[in-house]
């Protein structure tokens, strides 16, 4: 039973973690909370589904389609919710991301219909069994994808010139610009990367739950935002850790108390933790 809930928690945590990274990349660079993250996740799921149904029934192609769709949506968001509102109070951009979230949710519900769509199972076969609990290949893939995205992002940010530019923009936007860094392109790319990660997460969630619908991103977005805050909004490893911890804590709360307390326990721990350590698990203390 303990193992079962741990496996459940890690699987769910992988999806939270990817979405939390998406929040983290945007917030880390621009100090902007992107509340359309859940919508990028949902749109990623729909494009993954389109790939599976109309092109090829392959999970990895679906993940690519989801990432591409998220990338484009991220680009659009940056153009309209951020660049167009530069120089205006940051709150305007934040409200604009909320507006875009509603716009995308309703748009998808009009275009594809509000009803749930079925996503076929991929890699549902049992990979191994520990103490009577079977773990499927899909669950392993979920964890592997989250780990790969983390490693690639860390490499990108700390080992490439582009990463250096992203870090410079995140530390001081104006100085970075004066130093000749093309800040517009860097910011645009950051948003697009965040969209791609959210899109991947959406395809994984659709494959794991075998379903997708226009409002799937609402709760996922909210929980992942909490996971990102929990881990420290500016830190990508923190976002990953926050995602996994939230997933595991929630599943154990169901096991040991009751299903109704799932979110109560998860969010209570979040609030208490933030009172003690406001910057989150791995966040920077400076701001």
């Amino acid at each position, binding site marked *: 039973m303990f193992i079962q809930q741990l496996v459940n928690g890690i699987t769910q945590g992988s999806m939270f973690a990817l979405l939390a990274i998406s929040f983290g990349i945007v917030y880390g660079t621009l100090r902007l909370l992107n509340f359309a993250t859940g919508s990028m996740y949902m749109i990623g799921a729909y494009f993954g589904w389109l790939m599976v149904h109309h092109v090829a029934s392959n999970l990895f192609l679906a993940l690519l389609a989801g990432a591409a769709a998220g990338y484009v949506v991220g680009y659009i968001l940056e153009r309209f919710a951020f660049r167009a509102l530069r120089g205006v109070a940051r709150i305007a951009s934040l409200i604009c991301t909320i507006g875009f979230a509603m716009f995308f949710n309703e748009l998808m519900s009009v275009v594809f219909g509000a009803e749930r769509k079925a996503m076929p199972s991929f890699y549902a076969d049992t990979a191994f069994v520990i103490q009577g609990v079977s773990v499927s290949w899909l669950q392993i893939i979920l964890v592997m994808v989250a780990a790969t995205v983390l490693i690639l992002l860390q490499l990108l940010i700390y080992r490439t010139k582009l990463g250096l530019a992203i870090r410079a923009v995140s530390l001081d936007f104006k100085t970075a610009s004066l130093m000749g860094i093309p800040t517009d392109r860097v910011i645009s790319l950051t948003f697009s990367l965040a969209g791609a990660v959210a899109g991947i997460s959406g395809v994984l969630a659709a494959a794991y*739950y075998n379903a997708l619908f226009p409002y799937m991103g609402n*709760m996922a977005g909210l929980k992942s935002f909490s996971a990102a805050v929990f881990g420290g909004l500016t830190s990508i490893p923190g976002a990953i850790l926050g995602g996994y911890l939230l997933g595991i804590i929630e599943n154990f709360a169901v096991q040991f108390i009751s299903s109704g307390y799932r979110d109560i326990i998860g969010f209570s721990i979040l609030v208490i933790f933030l009172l003690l350590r406001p910057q989150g698990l791995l966040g920077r203390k400076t701001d």
Partner: protein
Amino acid sequence: MRNVLRTITAVLLVFVVMGPLFASGAAEADDTIHIALSAPITGDWSEFGINFQRSVELAISELNAQGGILGRQVRLSVGDTQGNPQQAATLAQQWTSDPTVVAQIGPFASGPSMAMQPIFDSAGMVQLSPTASHTEYAGGSRWSFGIVGTQAGEGPFNANYAYNEIGIRNIAILHINNDWGIDTANFFTRAFEGLGGRVTRTEFYFEGESDFTAVLSTLRESGADGLFIASFYNDGAAINIQRDRLGWGVPVIGPTSLYSPQLIALGGSSVEGLFTGTGFFTPDPDPAVRQYVQSFQAKYGALPNFHAALAYDAMKLLADAIERAGSTDSEAIRSAMAETRDFPGLAGSITFTPAGDAVKGYRMLQIRNGEFVVYD
């Protein structure tokens, strides 16, 4: 002279500006019958709301093709509750303040229905919800009617099948945590325990949840030899996929809300063998049902479900009641509605109890080889 001219000009201007308002309002009030529909067109329940709108529009186009009601064409206004009680109450204010609205159909869930109820009650407008099944809904006002049948009738039907036909003795219950889910779980529990069965554990989930693995693991631990799920078909499919993945193979039974072709489309092999009651069955050989299924499919490219059929029944019943009342007077419509006896609905015949609930008959279906079949 100039003053007189100025006054005349002012009066004329007022008429020019206001004229179209008076004219259109009066014309609509005279030659059409204006029906309001409240449904969750957007939000988490939008697939149900959109089906409501489709069915009611289909029923109205049929009525209008046959000459309308009382020889007048029917006009529909659709309002979006978003599945939200506050939004529903605002809509109720909007409908009751419009003198042309004759009666209101909707909304979808019990919560918003009960939020709208006091407003219709004080304004004296018929509220006909196709699907609200909370036992306190229809009895809450003389103006409120529900045609889905309540859990007070459905609970014992399901419990009897679970205990006597399927042979479950220890059952675990998973329900959605809203008015309807709590009611459904309670009535089922009471009836099942009344028969001598035992409920091993009752757990619930919140709307919008997509991960049921943890709660299913807990229910499995309780040692049940059957599972009752009080949810809609979309959650029902997700629950069964995850139950199947956990390798928990017990008989699963659920109320009429599970019956939809979408349950099989989404749930695949995991819903094989599942039991669900229904009042409406798409492959029903009944000619009225067949005609409705065909027109719905031709017009919208999708199969209707139980909820859609109930919305269609609601519109046809309302038309019938207005015909019988012989006028669009609210009190006359209400009396005619209350006097309904054996109205031949697609989702079962309708006779109202004094409270305004419909007494319905159900059939038990089982999913075999990926299809719903009548279980006898």
